[in-house]
């Protein structure tokens, strides 16, 4: 079991190393001289050459990569030229926004997906099953920027019940905080609920077919008890893995939703970095986001292992 954890840990490190290589070298082939970009077009060639050397851009690529990588470990990701601030500070400031909306979005998505996923598996081919399957398909096909715009018009402009842009920090005003993250989270949840619902429904259908369900019924347990205690428990592994992946994806930045609702999160930073070709900022963001994804996936895998004795014994049996 410990060897499984170590194994997963090792492969996570390898993935992050690969990501760092891809990120660094892909963004290095960008046309144009970063020193020129920073100083603007009026700068003298001497000034550009000086900054070029000061930034270490005249060193061989692999040396630049290694010193960049070493600085990453010290959480020093350089200075963004658009903001003129340290990338670490910029990211740290944006985390609360993105983390709040993604957590809240996952809570909404998980609630809806379990409610409808389980009922639709138990009452297969009923009205509720068809309804759930429509949510499944539509949720995956509706672009988040479109539903976001619809919500803004409806809730923000017509009903005037919710703010349509900006973020209120939780420590300033709890009610304001919830109001400011509600619509963006709902939009994100709609995008994720379909995939999750599909997995819950099919795992639940699988689980309902198992022998232990008959056993539970023979024992005389009530329907509710058999569903929650046996069927749901047996059907939890796949949805958990997917939930982990979805949360990781959301926590890594929700560019589109943050853009529509004008939220100062990680996604906004990504878009700014891309628009202005701020390579240092983008490199830092990509490393931060992929590390978050890899880390959350690792945690979920270990969690799933604890919940699912079959994986545990399989690993030990090896």
């Amino acid at each position, binding site marked *: 079991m410990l060897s499984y954890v170590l194994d997963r840990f090792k*492969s996570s490190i390898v993935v992050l190393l690969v990501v760092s290589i891809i990120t660094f070298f892909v963004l290095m082939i960008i046309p144009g001289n970063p020193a020129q970009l920073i100083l603007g077009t009026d700068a003298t060639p001497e000034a550009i050459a000086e900054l070029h050397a000061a930034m270490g851009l005249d060193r061989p690529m692999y040396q630049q990569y290694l010193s960049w990588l070493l600085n990453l470990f010290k959480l020093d990701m350089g200075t963004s030229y658009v903001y003129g601030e340290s990338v670490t500070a910029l990211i740290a400031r944006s985390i609360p926004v993105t983390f709040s909306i993604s957590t809240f979005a996952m809570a909404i998505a998980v609630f809806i997906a379990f409610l409808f996923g389980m009922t639709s598996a138990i009452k297969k081919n009923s009205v509720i099953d068809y309804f759930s*399957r429509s949510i499944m398909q539509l949720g995956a096909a509706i*672009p988040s920027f479109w539903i976001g*715009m619809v919500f803004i018009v409806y809730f923000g402009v017509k009903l005037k019940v919710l703010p349509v842009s900006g973020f209120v920090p939780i420590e300033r005003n709890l009610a304001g905080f919830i109001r400011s993250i509600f619509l963006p989270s709902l939009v994100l949840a709609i995008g994720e609920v379909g995939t999750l619902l599909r997995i819950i429904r099919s795992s639940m*259908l699988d689980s309902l077919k198992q022998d232990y369900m008959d056993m539970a019924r023979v024992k005389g347990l009530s329907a509710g008890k058999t569903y929650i205690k046996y069927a749901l428990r047996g059907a939890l592994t796949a949805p958990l893995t997917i939930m982990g992946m979805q949360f990781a994806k959301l926590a890594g930045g929700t*560019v589109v939703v943050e853009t529509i609702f004008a939220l100062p999160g990680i996604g906004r930073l990504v*878009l700014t970095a*891309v628009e202005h070709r701020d390579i240092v900022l983008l490199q830092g963001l990509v490393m931060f986001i992929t590390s978050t994804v890899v880390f959350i996936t690792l945690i979920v895998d270990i969690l799933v292992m604890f919940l699912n004795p079959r994986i545990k014994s399989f690993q030990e049996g090896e």
Partner: protein
Amino acid sequence: MRINLSLIIGIILVLIIIAVWVLSFVYMPYPPNEMNISNRFLKPGIDSEHILGTDNFGRDILSRIMYGSRNVLLVGIVSVTLGTMIGILLGALAAMLKHYSDKIIMRIMDGLMAFPGILLAMMLVTVLEKGIQGSIAAISIFMVPVFSRLVYSMILDTENLLYIKAAKSYGSSKGQIFFRHYIPAMLPRLITQFSSSIGSAVMIETSLSFLGLGIQPPFASWGLMLSESRQFFMGYPYLAVAPGIAIIITVLGFNLIGDGLNDILIDREGSDE
């Protein structure tokens, strides 16, 4: 065989989009980029000269939707085709050559998979150009790990089956085994994945153009139309209706075809039916 509702609805939706696309080469009510300031913000209506209305520059929305279908289908189909071909090649190389090639290739694929959502596409667009080629390249690369992982695991699953062993003992070359045996065995899954991937490619393309990183103005793309309407749609909500519905029809169509094919070709038991 039972009628598969997903597949039928999916095909109908995709046919609608293809019909619009074909028609856009033959006839569009107005030139899609023609501005007419005196006709700004005309409301949609059946008896109106502009059935779907006009936008903030007085451009005909129907014509722009029709023109936009070209970009969406071009980017969607070309990028998924490229991604599929490169993905199959890399997956097959990794699975059939083994040694170090599988470790190196599959680790790179794992690395690419660690980029969530459209981050990889955004990063690639930064390096490439904004616009249609940039979108195609970015989305193709996005698709590569999906297909290479699929092919890699399918080959590992089948390589010990009797008929593959028999072919090897007959002295068939790796290429022969790949084309004669692996490809036919993998085809159902590949086709299914191909169709759903077009759905996701369309979604990424529209997101990129919504963020201003895809097709550039004045050319029409559905994502860009939505993004351009953001300033005005509070007063003129109809601006956002047509592009949104066009995107939903396209993505839903390809996803439903993927699901339907999955039920028919792979999951014959049809746990969903």
